[in-house]
């Protein structure tokens, strides 16, 4: 279509909207630099005391550590289970496997509050409330669909003839999987692992229900800080989170660009 007045107007509008999406989050940066003891915009003087507090406070550091442990474990477990499952669904590819795929995607779309209820309900009798295992299992179930999606997308471009060739040349199922299938779906597996990590690292609704004292993740501590709405350490934590998001995003972009290049004919 020719680019008319409407199109140009709309493009300007779209840029304004996109800036509206990103900029509000940046307000955490000035607030985190305030020299005052309460949440405020700094006037003139800047101070790093809230960052200092963030990185010396035992509570915040333990939350960083706990969130890290839970997110890494979730990412590994979800990637392992999700990748196996995606390959299985791809191999079977029947009416039933498509139904199963739709079923396994449900945790991603069912409202989180309902998932939280479900885990809370079952974790009580299983004694998993407020434990690492409980959080990792719950987050894995929520994150595995992500891996399923990214790995399935990679598998969709994989040539099944390569698998047949490998088998004809005498490789076992396991060897074929390890040496032929896995290397060619690597981008999907890595993307899935990254998404699973972020999902767990950020998860708050389910965490609010199934953790209490022993496990106090970073989102949980931020949630508390936001509800109390006084301590500027929350702003410093928010800045650290934004920085981590941006780093993860850059890694992801570089990775996918490299893949695009290697895939291009």
């Amino acid at each position, binding site marked *: *279509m*020719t680019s*008319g007045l*409407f199109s140009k107007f*709309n493009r300007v509008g*779209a*840029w304004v*909207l*996109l*800036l509206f*999406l*990103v900029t*509000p*989050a940046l307000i*955490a940066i000035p607030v985190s630099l305030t020299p005052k003891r309460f*949440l405020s*915009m700094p006037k003139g003087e800047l101070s790093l005391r809230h960052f200092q507090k963030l990185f010396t406070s035992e509570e915040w550091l333990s939350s960083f550590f706990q969130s890290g442990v839970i997110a890494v474990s979730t990412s590994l477990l979800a990637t392992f*289970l*999700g990748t*196996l*499952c995606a390959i*299985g669904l*791809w*191999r*079977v590819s*029947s009416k039933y*496997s498509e139904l*199963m795929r739709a*079923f*396994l995607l449900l*945790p991603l*779309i*069912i*409202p*989180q*509050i309902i*998932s*939280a*209820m*479900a*885990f*809370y*309900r*079952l974790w009580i009798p299983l004694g998993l409330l407020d434990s690492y295992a409980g959080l990792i299992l719950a987050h*894995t*179930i929520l994150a595995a669909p*992500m891996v399923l*999606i990214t790995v*399935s997308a990679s598998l969709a471009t994989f040539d099944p003839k390569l698998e047949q060739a490998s088998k004809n040349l005498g490789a076992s199922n396991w060897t074929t999987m390890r040496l032929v299938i896995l290397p060619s779906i690597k981008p999907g597996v890595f*993307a899935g692992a990254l998404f699973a990590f972020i999902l767990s690292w*950020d998860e708050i609704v389910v965490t609010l229900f199934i953790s209490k004292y022993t496990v106090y993740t970073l*989102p949980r501590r*931020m949630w508390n800080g*936001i*509800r109390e709405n006084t301590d500027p350490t929350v*702003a410093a934590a*928010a800045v650290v*989170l934004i920085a981590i*998001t941006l780093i*993860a995003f850059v890694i992801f972009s570089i990775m996918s660009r490299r893949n695009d290049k290697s895939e291009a004919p």
Partner: protein
Amino acid sequence: MQAFTRHIHPGWLIIAPLMLMVIALYLGPILNILWLSVTDPEPGLSNYAKLAESDALIRIVWTTVRICIITTMFSVTLGYSIAYAMVHCHQRQKNYMLTLLLVSFWISILVRTFSWLMLLGRKGLVNGTLENIGLIAEPIAFMRNELGVLIGMVHYMIPYAVLPLLVSMQSLDTRVMDASRNLGASSTQTFWRIYLPLTLPGLVASTLLVFILSLGFYVTPAVLGGGKVLMVAEYISVQLLVTLKWGTAAMLAAIMLTGVLAMLWIMSRFMKLSTVFGGAAR
């Protein structure tokens, strides 16, 4: 074993671990909750009857539905505009736009909610600026009311609205629009009569996706509503964590779940579900 593998594809063996885990640890308790909605505190439909009797409950459900509808309308309209601009500009500009969209998509919900808290409060940056330039004398109440919840939710949902629309617009055959122009239609006519109907599947998918996600939204309404705007998700959490009443909460969850599954079913008629989420994952 031979007979077994003849009937069941060996692929199911590696599907099984995740499948069994989701069935046992997720589907199980969800079914249990549905069961609770008709058995707790006593067997029967008493929980569902509350929906007709209790004014407070009706108000909560109505608030939720109303906020979700308004959020969806704004997010999808604004999302359509963004997606349209992205499809109709140069690759380079499109990449920049996509970067901004994905960065906002990736920034933690807690960080964004915290930012809105700083911006919209009585002494927040927005009110402060408006007062300084003399536009307003009294601070505007952006928070602890539906306006604040709507701002926060629309801001969160826009990227979700854009992604299915983008998938749908990118797969259009642009020659159809050229044909329409060649046959004498104006660009406005072409947009309303050709372009919009052709992107309808994406529009439906995007609308339902945003509506579903809004329904169970917890964080933003709880913080920006400040206890004044009670939505279903927050009500459920209070019922379970404070008053320990499973019956009513289970009933609300059952209704929400039925609604979500019905909408998913409609959505699957218009678009392959994995494409919608696949778009979201990229």
